[in-house]
Every structure is written in structure tokens, then in C-alpha cells.
């Protein structure tokens, strides 16, 4: 377009002719995304291929045209192609022929390239794609819809109309007023009201003033400005020209980082076009207003996003901040009053001026109006660029727009605002994304970078990463930022290397506070934020690194020899025994397992295998090594149990140690004490040892003789078990003390079931799942109804349901108030329950137990729907619709477990914590009373068997240290596993195998073990799938 636009009439004429041309075009348009992300994934090759096939089919010209657009948004799904309303993802050049033949010629959609619903059905309309459905695109209004290199295209969609309106119909005060009504706040991060900044600069004395645009987007994971510059550069030019008109500037500068060559190139072309058309330069649109723009390229210094540093850089000096005041509005570029906003802020302006501030203010919250562009990155399905109304809850952004987390892994935290921001953990998924709410959480809106993290992210490592970035990017001018962040980085590095010390967390907090308080510019003043916010929300992870030298997410190399092992609460040498099984050296493998966990056979059946969720093999073919399956094989090969290494010690043998509770925690504590030569006594309230293993877990999952063998092993090592001895009933802690017991371990679990708190709960036929399971497991019979309803979603619920089914219930239904994927029970257990005929009623909440003549006759329930996010990071169920009645003659309640401490402690006072569980040191198990130790569910609340085993081991070491003043835990020293391994060999291509199960019809009338073991060759092949992550990492 080479026409010069001399006045509004010219502009309107061009718009009209462009609209006419558009309307006259009766053919189809193929939009190919030419945003940075799609270019990187090869969209130009796709465009070329499509063009070729269009030509070949003779469609070119009036029938089909192909347009390159700016960023469409879901970058991770690129290259993207839009035809009509179809949104094609991951398009390859090879797909071109099908797109042309089927869609353009045949008029049919190419289903396989369309986005899919969760049920796999293709989504045929762009507006129905969840990614777009919840977005409101103002800044990105043209991105992906027009050709960024065509001024005519921009004018067609009302481009430069806002400038014309401002220049011809409004005085600068009116423009400011409109901006004020819009409520727009600076989108660069600080959120200062835009109209106010404009007004300051407008009122500052001085003939020469400048308008500057900050396009120095440098946050890791942020690409909002880039996409606007690449996808709709004229909107920035128009916004800046309006600002220049308001403040009285004749010259503007756009500061863009040189790492954005495409953005620079497109902006340069757009400025040239605007200049040629007379939309930049002298006497714009026939008025007295003159304005021109220049691009200044930065060299990738994060600090140049800081306004004073940015201006220093434009002036040609080293980009370093200078003290404020004076503020740029008074004394900015070359000492002149300067207005500085970022790309996104300016890109909003044309919309606001053209449609009125009120239209913009319709979106957003009370204090934060309009929309915000976010760049979604990290562990999120729809990584890309989105624009949503300010105030959208974080959870909606991540799950609805962002499509959730790959692999359905739990959300852990989102880092908002890049290195200056902070993380928001799952407890706050319901937080609205606005300036105030985020600040309260120690995060910031920032420029809109959102990095999503799942449970595989180590928060200490995340903090270290951001601090490393900040330290690299600090200009080095002021002491707190230059030296302070270095010292923080050093402390974090040593924590990650397992060299953290007590007091390090406090030191980080103090340094962080001081750096924030004393730094020269915003970079330093916010640099500690990622550290402070991760400490605030994930302090336990820091403590784990420092005290336990452990990184559960499996990230910190010095603390992790293999991610599976890091994830194991008992720290079992998993790659070690897998390697040994792979060589057929079963006895050695078992011995290695029992170095850290006596319950090899038990855990082979009931372990929740967090190791498998961390297995790196999943990155290879999507499936983890079947670690529990290999363990099952290994345990099943054992004919005679071998005792582990025991170091006899006559001194220790004489000392009296009491263990309360013969569950996994207590028995494990006894096992490890015995290995040090102690002869502890275990007191068990019930008649049979095993705790939850025997009381709660049904025999079809854990045959009793399997458990008994391992309990006997522990007894043979010198651990005495006295059953039928209940603390608080048969003896007291003080009595033990009086009898000369020097230390006591409390492994009493969380045996009481929680109440529902609804009417009718006390009727006959309402039973607690813990009781129900226990009575059956210990006595061999329990009353079972005909129509059984189980309330709850955990393992107890599933166990009770499957038990009831086996005991002859006609129908068993589990009702749970959330969705199935939110059920805490193990997935394989739920699956088997369904296989066996248990019905699942999800999103149902009991309201009342219906009672007739004192007996249960039904359960009145209400349908629920998922609403906002609760503190557990899950969608909160909320009642919807009418209530309904489920007939039932038995209701089994499995909604949680508690511990009644008062009943057992007697006169001894122990410090308690959350929900009345015992407060104990996570490393030593020591409680507030020095001779009393605790671990397992009694400390953590209901958790897993293997967590209890780990807690027992730590307490054993803690007790030994308490008694002797030294550490003797010889099993903690890793021994090299001598198994030949050639890392140069490609990994095994063997697929993951499932454990065989017995047929359903054989299960439902018996308690025969459901799962069986593999044949040896299968097990060996499965074991050999291990990638040996630990290889070469041990000394």
C-alpha cells in the first residue's frame, strides 16, 4: 500500500476498500501461524507445502489464499493452521495434501489434526476449544487473525481509527480521562495506573518529551511482548502515537531486545509502512501533531527492563539503573520528561480509545480492570499465549485455559512474574489473578509469565535457578544485589548439594529481606522473591534437603542417585535390586531391599510405589519400570527368610526400649534397633501384630502368612512383641519409665475413623470402615448388608467395598463427593473394585442417613459439581440440583482417620500439631519429650506403609543417637552394586507388563490373593528395563 493518508477521509476510504475487497473475496483463507513458536516448529515449511498443493490443485487466486498471521496462542501445538472454523494442530508438511484435498476440495474436516476432547472426540469449532473459550482477547485482538505485515489489513480491522479519534475529536485531557475510566494499569509488572503516569509526564515542564516503549522482555518463559510485536506491530505504533499526542512528544523509541529478530524486523517494517502512509511523521492525519518512532535494540540484559537502565541504554551507555527520584516522568531520556510503558500496555490503548474506557473496564475486578496476557510455560498442556480477564482464578487459567498438567500429575506451584515474582502453591489455586491478591501471596502479576510446576519440581532447585539467573543478570552496581544475591545463591547451592546447615533458611530469609530493603532498583528489590516465597510455601522441602539430605522430587544431583530412590520414603536402593534381579541374583536383591525396608514381601503387594511415578523410563515410552512387580517376583522367590546383618552389642542389649504399636512404623523401628544389638519390646493393643497391615488391608491384597513371615523375621532378630497390651488401658508411659525403659517409640497410627457429621449417623447399620475392616480381618466375620453404600474415596473405602462384596452384599456403591481422578485410593485398586462389580457414584455428597425404627434404610445425597479450588489444590465440590435417595441397609463411612491422643498419653504432655497428631522431628522422630519418639500415621496422619517404614528407621537411628550420642546406622552407607552395565547400549525396548490377576468370578466369593506373580523371564526382562540412573554416581 503506497497511498498517503492525509486525513481521516483517506483512512476511512482505505478501510472501506479493504472491507469491500474482503467481502468480495469469495474464496477460502488458509491462516498459517507465523508466530515465533510456530516458526520454530516449522510453520513456514507447512505453508510452503500447502501453497504447493493449492497451486497444484489450481485453487490459487480467487478460490483460496494463504495468510501468514501472528501468534495464535497454543504455541506448544504448532505449527497451527486455521481454515474456516477448523483449528489444525501439529501440522506437518506431509499433511498439506490431505488438508487441501479433503478440507479445501472435499469440504470435510481432517479429524486427526483437530484438537480432541477428553473423550477423544475431535473439536470442530474453534470457539469450542477450551483454550479459546475462556479467553478475552483485547491486546491479542488481531494476533493470529491478520497479516502483521499488512497495514491495509490493520486498517481494515479499524486500525488507526483510535488515533484519528484522539487527534480529531478529543483533546489530551479527554484521552487521559478515557484512560482513567478504563482503569488500565501498567502491564510491565508494577501495575501503576497508566493514566496517572501519562498525566505526570504531560504536566512535567519541558519542551522536549519522549515516549518510550519497553519491549525488553527478559523473564524466563515470558513472550507476551514478543508476540504482540510479531503479530500486531501496528497496534503498538498506534498506542504510542496516542500517548505522544497526550504528553506532547514528537519522538518515541521502542526498546526491543536483539534476541527478538523477528519482532524487530516486523516492527521495523510496520514503522516504515506507517511512515510512508503518513501515520508517522509530520502533521499526522492533517493535524498539527507530528510524531516519529525509532527502534533501539538491547543486548539481552534483563536489567534493561528496569526503566532507568533502559533509558541509560538508549542513551548509548552501559545499561545500568540510576537512583530514582528523579522519575522518568520528570527527568528521563537525556534528562527530558519521558513516558515509559511496555508493549502490552500500549497495545491496549487503541481499543480503549476507540471503544471507550468503560468497555475495557467491563472486564476485570474492582481494582484491576481489563485483561492480561499470560505466557503459559512449564508443565502445562497448552503452553502458549493467552489473554484472560484480570481476576480469573489461577486454577482456571491452568486447568481450563491451560489444559492442566501433562500426565495428569498433581499441580505443585506456579511461578508468576518470573525471577522477580514468587510461586503460588496448590493451596491458592483459587486466588484471583490480580495485582493485590498475588502480592498478598508474595508473588506478583509481573509481565505475565506463568511457569507451571508439578510434583517433579524441586522448589529449592527452582529458587536456585531463579537466583542464578538474577545473579547473572545483576548489573553489579549496588552491593545488596551484587554480593547479597551471590551469597544467597551460594547458600542455596550448598543446600542443593547436600551441604546445607542449620540456620541456612533463616540466613536466606534475613539476607532476602535486607536485599529487598536496600537494593538500588527493582531487580534487586525483587530478586529474593523466588527464594522467600518458596521458603514460605515449601519450607519443609528446604528442611528435608538440609536435615535429611534428601530431595524427594529427585532433582538435586548431589542428593539424588536415582529419582525412584529419592521418591521412596524408606530410601530403598531400587536401581540396585532391580539390577540384581535382572541378573537373577534374587537373594542379594532381597538382602539389599531389607537394608532399608524389612517388609519386602508386604510392600511388594501394598506399596503405593511413589518410585514409579518418578521413574525416568516414562520419558522414554510413557511407562515407568514396573518396580513393584519386580519386587513381587523377588519376594515370591524367597523360601527361607535370611536375617539381615545384625551387630550384636551387649551394652545395647541391656538397655530397655519400648515400642508402642506393632504396625509398620513400630516393627520397622524394632527391626533397625535390633540390627544395632538392642532388644526392644513392642506393645500391641490387638491380639495380632501388624497394625493396619493386618487390621485394615484385606487378605486378598495381603495374604496373612506373607505378613506373618516378615513379622516372625523381626521377632527372630530379638524383638519381643507383647500383644493385647493397650497403652492407656493396660499400662501408661510413666509406668514404662518407672520400669526402666530409657526410650519409647510411639507408632500408634491413626486408628479412629472420622465422623460425617450428618443426621442419622448413629443409626444401626452405619459403621466405620476402619471398624468394619478390622472386625472382619481379626475375627473372620462381620455383619454385612444387602445394599451397601460406602462413603469416601480412599483405600479404606475401596477395601471395605470389596470386602463387603466378597461377604455377599448384593450391591456395593462407593459415593464420593469429588471426581474419580481425585480419589486418593490407588488407581489399580479402584480398577479392580470396578472389575469386581463395585459401583462408583462420583460427585455425590451424603446429606442425611435415612432411618426407620433405628435402622438404616437409605442415604439422602446431593449431586455435586466441581467449582473453585480448595486448599488441597483440587476442585471444590459444590452442591447443585436436587437431593436424591439411595436405598441402603448398610452405610460404611470411610472419610478419614484420626488419633485420640488423650486416651493414650495419660499424664505425659506431648507437643501436638495439625489435627491433633504428634509433633516430632522429621529426621530423628524425637518429640517434645526427649525420651519419647514417634513416627508413622500418628505423626503424619494417614499415609503409606512405606512412609511408616521410613519413619521407623529414622526413629531407630534417632533413639540410638539419643542413647549413645553417636550414629551407628551402618545400613545407610551405600555399597556399590557390582552388576555389569554398559551405558552405551540402547535401553531395552520391552514394554511394561502388568501383574496377572485371578478371574473376577473366582474373587468375589473368596479372599484369595487377587494379584499373582510373573514368571521368571518376564520379571527379568521387566527388571532390565531399568535405565540405571544411579550408574556412575556412587563412589
Amino acid at each position: 500500500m503506497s497511498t498517503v493518508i492525509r486525513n481521516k477521509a483517506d483512512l476511512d476510504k482505505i478501510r472501506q476498500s479493504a472491507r469491500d475487497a474482503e467481502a468480495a473475496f469469495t474464496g477460502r483463507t488458509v491462516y498459517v501461524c507465523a508466530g515465533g513458536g510456530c516458526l520454530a516448529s516449522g510453520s513456514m515449511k507447512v505453508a510452503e507445502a500447502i501453497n504447493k498443493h493449492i497451486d497444484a490443485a489450481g485453487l490459487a487466486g480467487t478460490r483460496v489464499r494463504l495468510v501468514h498471521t501472528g501468534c495464535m496462542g497454543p504455541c506448544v501445538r504448532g505449527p497451527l493452521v486455521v481454515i474456516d472454523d477448523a483449528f489444525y494442530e501439529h501440522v506437518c508438511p506431509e499433511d498439506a495434501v490431505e488438508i487441501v484435498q479433503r478440507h479445501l476440495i472435499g469440504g470435510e474436516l481432517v479429524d486427526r489434526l483437530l484438537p480432541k476432547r477428553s473423550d477423544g472426540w475431535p473439536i470442530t469449532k474453534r470457539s469450542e476449544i477450551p483454550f479459546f473459550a475462556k479467553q478475552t482477547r483485547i491486546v491479542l485482538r488481531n494476533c493470529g487473525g491478520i497479516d502483521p505485515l499488512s497495514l491495509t489489513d490493520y486498517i481494515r480491522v479499524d486500525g488507526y481509527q483510535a488515533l484519528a479519534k484522539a487527534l480529531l475529536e478529543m483533546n489530551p485531557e479527554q484521552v487521559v480521562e478515557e484512560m482513567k475510566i478504563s482503569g488500565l494499569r501498567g502491564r510491565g509488572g508494577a501495575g501503576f495506573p497508566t493514566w496517572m503516569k501519562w498525566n505526570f509526564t504531560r504536566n512535567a515542564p519541558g519542551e522536549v518529551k519522549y515516549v518510550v516503549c519497553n519491549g525488553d522482555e527478559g523473564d524466563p518463559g515470558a513472550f507476551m511482548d514478543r508476540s504482540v510485536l510479531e503479530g500486531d506491530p501496528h497496534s503498538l505504533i498506534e498506542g504510542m502515537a496516542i500517548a505522544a499526542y497526550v504528553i506532547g512528544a514528537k519522538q518515541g523509541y521502542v526498546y526491543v531486545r536483539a534476541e527478538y529478530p523477528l519482532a524487530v524486523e516486523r516492527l521495523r517494517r510496520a514503522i516504515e509502512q506507517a511512515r510512508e502512509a503518513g501515520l508517522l511523521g509530520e502533521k499526522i492525519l492533517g493535524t498539527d501533531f507530528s510524531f516519529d518512532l525509532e527502534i533501539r535494540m538491547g543486548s539481552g540484559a534483563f536489567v534493561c527492563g528496569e526503566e532507568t537502565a533502559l533509558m541509560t541504554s538508549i542513551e548509548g551507555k552501559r545499561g545500568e539503573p540510576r537512583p530514582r527520584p528523579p522519575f522518568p516522568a520528570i527527568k528521563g531520556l537525556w534528562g527530558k520528561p519521558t513516558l515509559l510503558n511496555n508493549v502490552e500496555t500500549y497495545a491496549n490503548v487503541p481499543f480503549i480509545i476507540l471503544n471507550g474506557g468503560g468497555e475495557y473496564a467491563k472486564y476485570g475486578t474492582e481494582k484491576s480492570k481489563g485483561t492480561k496476557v499470560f505466557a503459559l510455560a512449564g508443565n502445562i498442556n497448552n503452553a502458549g499465549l493467552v489473554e484472560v480477564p484480570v481476576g480469573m482464578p489461577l486454577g482456571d487459567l491452568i486447568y481450563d485455559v491451560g489444559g492442566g498438567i501433562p500426565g495428569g500429575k498433581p499441580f505443585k506451584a506456579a511461578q508468576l512474574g518470573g525471577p522477580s515474582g514468587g510461586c503460588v502453591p496448590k493451596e491458592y489455586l483459587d486466588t484471583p489473578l490480580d495485582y493485590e491478591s498475588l502480592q498478598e501471596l508474595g508473588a506478583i502479576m509481573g509481565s505475565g509469565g506463568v511457569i507451571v510446576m508439578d510434583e517433579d519440581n524441586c522448589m529449592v532447585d527452582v529458587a536456585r535457578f531463579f537466583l542464578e539467573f538474577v545473579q547473572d543478570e545483576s548489573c553489579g552496581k549496588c552491593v545488596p544485589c551484587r554480593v547479597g544475591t551471590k551469597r544467597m545463591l551460594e547458600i542455596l547451592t550448598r543446600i542443593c548439594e547436600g551441604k546445607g546447615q542449620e540456620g541456612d533458611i533463616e540466613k536466606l530469609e534475613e539476607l532476602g529481606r535486607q536485599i529487598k530493603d536496600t537494593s538500588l532498583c527493582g531487580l534487586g528489590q525483587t530478586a529474593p522473591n523466588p527464594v522467600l516465597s518458596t521458603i514460605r510455601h515449601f519450607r519443609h522441602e528446604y528442611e528435608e534437603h538440609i536435615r535429611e539430605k534428601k530431595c524427594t522430587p529427585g532433582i538435586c544431583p548431589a542428593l539424588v542417585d536415582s529419582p525412584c530412590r529419592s521418591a521412596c520414603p524408606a530410601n530403598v536402593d531400587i536401581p540396585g535390586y532391580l539390577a540384581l534381579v535382572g541378573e537373577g541374583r534374587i537373594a542379594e536383591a532381597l538382602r539389599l531391599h531389607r537394608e532399608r525396608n524389612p517388609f519386602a514381601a508386604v510392600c511388594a503387594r501394598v506399596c503405593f510405589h511413589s518410585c514409579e511415578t518418578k521413574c525416568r523410563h516414562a520419558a522414554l515410552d510413557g511407562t515407568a519400570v514396573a518396580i513393584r512387580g519386580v519386587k513381587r517376583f523377588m519376594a515370591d522367590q524367597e523360601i527361607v527368610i535370611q536375617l539381615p546383618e545384625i551387630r550384636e552389642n551387649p551394652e545395647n542389649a541391656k538397655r530397655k526400649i519400648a515400642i508402642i504399636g506393632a504396625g509398620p512404623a513400630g516393627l520397622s523401628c524394632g527391626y533397625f534397633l535390633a540390627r544395632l544389638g538392642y532388644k526392644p519390646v513392642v506393645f500391641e493393643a490387638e491380639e495380632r501384630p501388624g497394625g493396619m497391615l493386618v487390621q485394615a488391608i484385606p487378605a486378598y491384597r495381603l495374604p496373612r502368612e506373607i505378613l506373618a513371615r516378615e513379622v516372625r523375621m523381626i521377632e527372630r532378630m530379638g524383638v519381643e512383641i507383647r500383644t493385647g497390651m493397650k497403652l492407656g488401658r493396660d499400662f501408661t508411659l510413666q509406668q514404662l519409665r518407672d520400669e526402666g525403659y530409657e526410650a519409647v517409640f510411639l507408632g500408634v497410627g491413626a486408628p479412629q475413623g472420622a465422623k460425617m457429621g450428618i443426621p442419622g449417623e448413629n443409626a444401626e447399620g452405619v459403621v466405620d470402615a476402619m471398624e468394619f475392616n478390622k472386625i472382619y480381618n481379626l475375627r473372620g466375620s462381620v455383619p454385612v448388608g444387602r445394599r451397601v453404600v460406602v462413603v469416601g474415596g480412599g483405600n479404606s473405602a475401596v477395601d471395605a467395598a470389596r470386602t463387603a462384596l466378597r461377604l455377599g452384599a448384593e450391591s456395593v456403591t462407593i459415593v464420593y463427593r469429588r471426581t474419580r481422578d481425585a480419589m486418593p485410593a490407588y488407581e489399580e485398586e479402584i480398577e479392580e473394585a470396578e472389575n469386581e462389580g463395585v459401583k462408583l457414584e462420583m460427585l455425590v455428597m451424603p446429606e442425611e442417613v435415612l432411618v426407620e425404627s433405628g435402622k438404616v434404610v437409605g442415604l439422602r445425597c446431593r449431586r455435586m459439581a466441581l467449582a473453585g479450588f480448595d486448599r488441597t489444590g483440587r476442585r471444590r465440590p459444590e452442591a447443585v440440583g436436587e437431593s436424591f435417595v439411595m436405598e441402603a441397609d448398610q452405610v460404611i463411612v470411610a472419610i478419614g482417620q484420626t488419633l485420640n491422643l488423650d486416651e493414650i498419653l495419660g499424664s505425659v504432655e506431648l507437643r501436638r500439631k495439625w489435627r491433633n497428631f504428634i509433633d516430632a522431628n522429621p529426621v530423628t522422630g524425637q518429640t517434645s519429650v526427649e525420651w519419647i519418639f514417634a513416627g508413622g500415621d500418628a505423626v503424619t496422619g494417614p499415609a503409606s506403609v512405606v512412609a511408616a517404614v521410613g519413619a521407623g528407621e529414622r526413629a531407630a537411628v534417632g533413639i540410638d543417637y539419643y542413647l549413645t550420642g553417636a550414629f551407628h546406622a551402618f545400613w545407610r552407607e551405600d555399597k556399590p552394586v557390582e552388576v555389569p552395565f554398559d551405558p552405551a547400549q540402547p535401553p531395552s525396548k520391552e514394554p511394561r507388563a502388568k501383574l496377572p490377576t485371578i478371574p473376577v468370578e473366582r474373587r468375589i466369593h473368596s479372599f484369595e490373593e487377587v494379584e499373582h506373580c510373573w514368571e521368571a523371564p518376564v520379571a527379568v526382562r521387566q527388571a532390565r528395563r531399568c535405565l540405571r540412573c544411579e550408574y556412575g554416581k556412587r563412589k
Partner: protein
Amino acid sequence: MATATDVITVTINGRAFDAEPGMTILQAARAAGVEVPTLCYLEGVQCIGACRVCVVEVEGARNLVASCSTPVAPGMKIHTHSKRVREARRTVVELLLSEHDGDCATCARSEDCELQALARQMGIKTNRYEGERTKKLVDFSTPALVRDSGKCIKCRRCVSVCDELQGVGALFPQGRGFDTVIGPAFARALDTTPCAQCGQCAAVCPVGAITEQSHIDRVWDAIDDPNLYVVVQTAPAIRAALGECFGCEPGTLVTGKMTAALRRLGFDAVFDTNFTADLTIIEEGTELLTRLKKALVEKEPVALPMFTSCSPGWIKFCEHYHPDFLPNLSTCKSPQQMFGALAKTYYAKKIGRKPEEIFCVSIMPCTAKKFECQRPEMHDSGVQDVDAVLTTRELGDMIKAAGLDFMSLPDEEMDAPMGLSSGAADIFANTGGVMEAALRTVYEIVTGRELPMENLHVTPVMGLKGIKEAALSFENVKPEWSFLEGVTAKVAVAHTLGNADRLIRKIRSGEAQYHFVEVMTCPGGCIGGGGQPRFCTDEVRKARIAAIYKEDEGKPIRKSHENPAIKQIYEEFLGTPLGEVSHHLLHTSYTPRPKILS
């Protein structure tokens, strides 16, 4: 908008004070008698704001603010020593200590280190933030200065003086984060830059990161060598500043005690650079008149204005930056070098020694003199004319090392003949002083009358203004100078190289025209030299300047041409000004130098 006459009321630590608009919190606090510690703050340059030691708490502000850069505002409530401030400040100093190579016992700045003083003030006894230290790179490449990056705390005072004051910009920050270093481009050695070696960086460095190359050891060695006859000359600026090394107020004159101390240190003869300052006036005055005659009478092309050449930093700056002005520089050597050449010829002959048996030491307020003395052209006696240069600070250290109780030494006189001088020579120490001394002599030569100014002072060229100008008309001149009748001589005086640069640009563009221009490298002239006792502010400079004028006014002879020793040396040795011997021993030439050196 407040006008300049408005007064702003602020509250500092709970008490109300009046402050002037535009004042910083630091200035207001100091005016109110409240001391706020600073480290990077430097009077006279743009606020740096790097060290954060001067942070204070302002009620209502989210963060602490740097008092050096934050202007006062009406009603501001400031706390300079609250717990929050004290803790933050302490952390900042602790962080500095943690990166600093703090081996105090072996540091040249051990007792006048500002960081050490702050640490002591804040009661810092342990280092809570130990970690990696700044990489140690020691740059000995220049004759005048040593830079030790391990000690550098990146306060940027040196960057500011080098850039803003001197217009050289040899030092600046490079790298980022903890790896930031201050130094020449691409971390090269200082001798690859057009550094003037003025030592202003060393004068403002709060720690031992930039110091002079010490000549103390070689001076002791010479004194201890029985075969060497060690003569010492003392520059005029020393006597007004040396006392500060011993706790005197700035501006205390210690000429006599200094002489006594030098004798007790073991120098064989104690002389005065003032002697050759007087000689410079004769030679340079004659040169100026000769150039004027050539220009006005013989109409020969001759370089005017003529520039003084006493200040070696200025000479080097001119060689690097304005080589087209080298012909304008007076060919006279600086007084230091004239002295060296004469000590090893004229004086050596007098005492029957060979030049190589004389060891010539100068005490200078200047680090560039260490560069100057080793210039290859400064060997006119056949050997290096000046062997060692001590700064005022180094002399102070030597006196302390010798255990002399300086303040109780008697006042002694310098030795004849090279210890005799006029008041005109004294004022060489001050900006405008060389000009005034020259005018005293030139005017009298031309007119036969004394300079018609009160107390012989050329008031317009006195004081700390950056560029000063004066005009002087010659009337009723002696017959041999008739070509100057009615001529108004226009002169200019600049101190600091930044001002010199500005002046040269004006001259080059034709915007300004002069006959004679004095340039001194350092602010205030030699009294503010890079080798003077720290810490130099304008107040200190003014006190030293006043002391020098006092010394001048107290002298019986106040014009160079009236110095009998000068008359004597022309009679006995030199012959006539600009004569054969003078040409050989007292004059020199200059060489253009590139801006970037390999």
C-alpha cells in the same frame, strides 16, 4: 513548584529541621548535625547510589532509601539510625567485607581504609556471609598506579572521577553480577588506556584497590647506599598538606618541620621544587614573549595560545586526546624535571660528584610525576634525571616508619642554593597560581612596573571555578617591548582535565581566543593532587589554597625574577633564558599518543 527561597521542614530522628529544596536527605542530615555513613558518595560528581551504606528509613516509603540520592520533601519523616536502618547497613557492610580481599595487615590503606572504619563503627566482629571473593588481579602496568581488583568494592568513585572530572574514562564497570569488575576495557591493563595517571582514582578510593606505585623502598635503599648522594626536592603543594598525615587541620603549613624531617630521614641535601618553579617562570615567560613577538612582529606562524606544561597528567592527556595542540604546549619541562636535570649537572658539579652518584628524589602531590620521571626524554643529565618520586602520603608513611615525632620537630630552612625560592613559586600549587606567577614576571619585564594588582594577586584566576579567564592590558611598555603596547593579553585557567578538554574545544572552534592558558590536571591544582592525603573535599582544597597564598604573602621575595639564586644560576651556569644550556636541560618536546594502545 517550590521556589528556591522556600524552606522545607523535615523531621530527622524525631526532631524538626529546616532544609533547602533540592537538598538530598544526606545533605539535610549533615546540615542538621546528623552524620550518616557513606561509602560511594563523592562530592562534586553525579550521585552514584551504588553502595547503599547511606540508606535511611523514610516513613511511608516501602523500602529504605539512599540518603545520598533522595531529595528531601516537605514533612518527610526520616530515621537515620533506627534498628531497621542499622541492621540493613550492617548487612551491606558485611556483604562488602565478604567479597573484599581484607588482608588488612598487609594493606597500604590499613589505617585510613573507609571500609575498615565502617566495619569497626558497626561493631562487625565476625563474617556471617563468607563466600567466594572477588577475583584478585593486580595491575602493575603503569609507572604511577597499582590496581588490585581483589580489594575493589566497586563503589565507582574512581569511575566517576575518571569520567566526569577528567574526561578520560579509563575505568568503568564490566561484566555482570558478582563478576562485575571495574577496570579498563576488556579487562586489559591500565597502560593500554589513555590514562593520564593523575591518581585522582587513588585519591578517592575508599579501600586499597588503587594506590600509587610505592617508591619508598627504593628511596630507603638509596639513603642506605653510602656511594649515593641523595638530594630531595619538595613540591610547593606538600607543605600545605603533609601536616594532615599527622592529624593537623587541612591548610596547616609545615614547611620547616618537613625540612627537618627530611634531614632526619637521611637525605643529604633538602631542596625545593620552588627553585625550579621560579626558573620555569623565567623560561616560560620568555618563551611566551618570544612567541608573541613572532606572532605580532615577525608575523610568523606560531602556536598560540601557549599552554603551561608543569602538570604531567595534562601533558599526557594532551598527547592522547589533542595532539594537534602539542605545538601550543610550552617546551619548558616541569619544575620537577628541571630540578632533576640541574641537580645532576649544575649541583653535581658544585659538589664534585658525577651525575650517576646523585640520587634525586622528589616529594610530589602527584602520581603522574612517577610517570613523568621515567619518560625516556627525561635523561638530559646523561642518566635518569629524577630517580624516585614520593607522594605526600608516602613521605608521611616514611616519617612514621622512621619513628619521628613530626609535630615536635623544629622548623628548619632548606639548603642553598636550590632551596631558595620566591612566593611566586609557592603558588604553583594552586589552580591559577602558575598564571599569576607568570604574569607577575612578564608584566614587570614588559612594563618595568610591578603587576598593578592588590597584593600581586590576579583575583579572576583564583578559586575553584572550573574555567577562569582574565585580561591584562600592557600600557607604557618598555621600548624593547613596544609591539605589546596597548595589547590586551587574554589568559585562561582550567583545572581538571574535563575542564581542559572543554576549553580546548572552545579554542579549537574559535569560540574563545587566548594568549596563554594554564592547565592543572587535578581539582584545585596540585594542592588537590592524586598523591595528597585523603580525603579531599572542596573545603579541604580551599584551606590548602589559602595556606599556599599565605606562604606566598609571607615571603620577602614574591616574584620569580627577583630570586637571587635564579640570577646566580643564569650567571654561573645557564647563561640566558632559552639559551643553549637551557635548551638542552630545561626544555623538551612532546609526542602524539594514540587513544587506544596495544
